[in-house]
């Protein structure tokens, strides 16, 4: 099979061009407008039997619909029309070759129209696997060295030396290295640094680190350059004492985010006012806060970006219960009156936090350390967390639909997919002043490892789920793709 069509199609293209195919495709295969959908809904019936299929085809020479098989063949015999478009997939059937044929030009048209359709319906663009272009194909042929990934591979696993209470850094680095989308970004060499070679860019440093982790070497790494860079750019973390892993995580994201912007033109920086650096693309979500005035029921809504969600640990419970509490409407009481713009007066109100947009990586911070003027303590209560988490109940849209009592419509979201999978857990062992951090990371699907500084050991999912849990990292199970067609 090749993608240069057949002689019959090439003759047709020479006489009529690609327009007939474009029109049939845009109206009856991938409807790019409401009008097209109306035509498709009402007129796609077999001219011979009046049915809607199966496998409806359209004649490319004249206006004629027919089911595949007998009715297509009848038409091709009587009219001598040999080319047909499959209305489900847009493929071309040639009755003379008696098979589907593939033409590069038509395939490109089909792809563009499919993207337009997805855009007009507001759905995720169908995933198209990577195909090497000519240069890449040549490079692959030239470089014959291949690495085969077997089911029991230890690829991507490497211990990290403790440089004197730097386990807080090690466990966060292990987490970042095993963040699937971040790994794909760096191994795809997507970071193009404008300050290259200066040794001051943390993103470049992380990029090098990924190469080290995936080089196949097994000796533990020493992260002195990374530590130094973070000390320089996040001064509050400098020093040799133990730091809070959560604080380190947020500070690292912040420095990475700032360095991603180094040398980037202002025009490409922002899209809809939002930063689209890799850190923000992966980690940023939108937290919606609705403040409702108890007198006039007026709502004031604000949306703030977040990189992680800090959850109170009241006692034994579950992550879902913590999130449920986090997104519950809270009465602010008479001591905390807020000025209502509607009433023009200070009123009592309720406040509710919900998730307006979800990040690709959802990071949860269980607030196990309590610092108050009287006492500093660690709360070791068991909080269970699932391997698979559906975030839908905590979304703003869902909450609205559930809270509206007279709501007749089913909550939106048949097509929404907010499932997340656990991929890393950071644990704090010991007490507040003499503690140690370790991390569990998912190296591949169903394959977990415990990272304790320079020691890497295989772990079971059960062991991960039974651990105390301080920072929990979830990755979106199914990725959505945006279209780039205008």
């Amino acid at each position, binding site marked *: 099979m090749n993608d240069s069509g057949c002689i019959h199609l090439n003759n047709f293209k020479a006489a009529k061009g690609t327009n007939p195919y474009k029109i049939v495709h845009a109206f009856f295969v991938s409807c790019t407008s409401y009008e097209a959908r109306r035509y498709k*809904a009402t007129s796609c019936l077999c001219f011979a039997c009046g049915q809607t299929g199966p496998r409806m085809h359209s004649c490319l020479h004249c206006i004629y619909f027919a089911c595949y098989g007998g009715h297509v063949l009848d038409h091709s015999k009587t009219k001598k029309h040999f080319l047909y478009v499959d209305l489900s997939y847009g493929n071309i059937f040639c009755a003379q070759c008696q098979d589907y044929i593939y033409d590069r030009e038509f395939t490109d048209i089909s792809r563009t129209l499919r993207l337009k359709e997805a855009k007009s319906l507001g*759905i995720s663009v169908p995933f198209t696997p990577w195909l090497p272009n000519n240069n890449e194909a040549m490079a692959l042929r030239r470089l014959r060295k291949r690495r085969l990934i077997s089911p029991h591979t230890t690829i991507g696993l490497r211990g990290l030396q403790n440089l004197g209470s730097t386990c807080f850094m090690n466990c966060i680095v292990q987490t970042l290295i095993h963040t699937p989308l971040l790994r794909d970004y760096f191994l795809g060499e997507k970071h193009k640094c404008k300050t290259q070679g200066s040794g001051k860019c943390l993103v470049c440093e992380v990029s090098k680190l990924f190469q080290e982790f995936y080089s196949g070497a097994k000796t533990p790494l020493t992260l002195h350059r990374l530590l130094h860079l973070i000390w320089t750019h996040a001064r509050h973390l400098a020093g040799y004492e133990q730091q809070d892993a959560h604080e380190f995580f947020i500070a690292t994201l912040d420095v990475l985010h700032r360095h991603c912007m180094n040398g980037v033109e202002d025009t490409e920086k922002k899209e809809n006012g939002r930063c689209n650096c890799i850190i923000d693309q992966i980690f940023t979500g939108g937290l919606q806060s609705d403040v409702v005035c108890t007198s006039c029921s007026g709502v004031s809504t604000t949306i703030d970006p977040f990189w992680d969600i800090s959850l109170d640990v009241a006692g034994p419970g579950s992550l879902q219960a913590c999130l449920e509490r986090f997104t519950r409407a809270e009465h602010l009481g008479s001591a905390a009156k807020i000025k209502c713009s509607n009433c023009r007066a200070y009123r009592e109100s309720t406040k509710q936090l919900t998730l307006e947009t979800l990040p690709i990586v959802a990071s949860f911070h269980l607030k196990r350390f309590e610092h108050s003027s009287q006492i500093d303590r660690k709360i070791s209560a068991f909080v269970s967390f699932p391997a698979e988490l559906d975030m839908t109940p905590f979304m703003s849209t869902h909450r609205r639909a559930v809270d509206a009592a007279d709501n007749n419509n089913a909550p939106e979201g048949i*097509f929404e997919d907010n499932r997340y999978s656990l991929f890393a857990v950071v644990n704090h062992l010991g007490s507040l002043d003499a503690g140690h951090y370790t991390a569990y990371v998912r190296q591949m699907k169903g394959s977990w490892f415990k990272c304790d500084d320079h020691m890497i050991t295989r772990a079971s999912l059960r062991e991960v789920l039974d651990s105390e849990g301080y920072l929990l990292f979830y990755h979106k199970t199914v990725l959505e793709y945006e279209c780039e067609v205008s």
Partner: protein
Amino acid sequence: MTVNSTIAHQRLILSGDRERFKELLRRRLIECGWRDQVRMLCREVVKENEGNNVTFDLLLTRVTPQARALVPDSVKKELLLKLKTHLLTQKDQ
């Protein structure tokens, strides 16, 4: 097709929901590995017929029975349930 099912069919196309359901199904089939399994089945048929011209129809007749049987019940159930809920809630509009 009965009048009712024709109307339901047309409505699904008109609203674009038919494409949305198709996309959902496509995703589920990729997620559960069905597409890869079917690809392997196709490769086997092509290998068996090496040298001959393998047509789409040949692939279809050989692969369809197994491919249909490989669709996980959970996927069928989810789609059926969602379609049902969807059609019932759309009725009054």
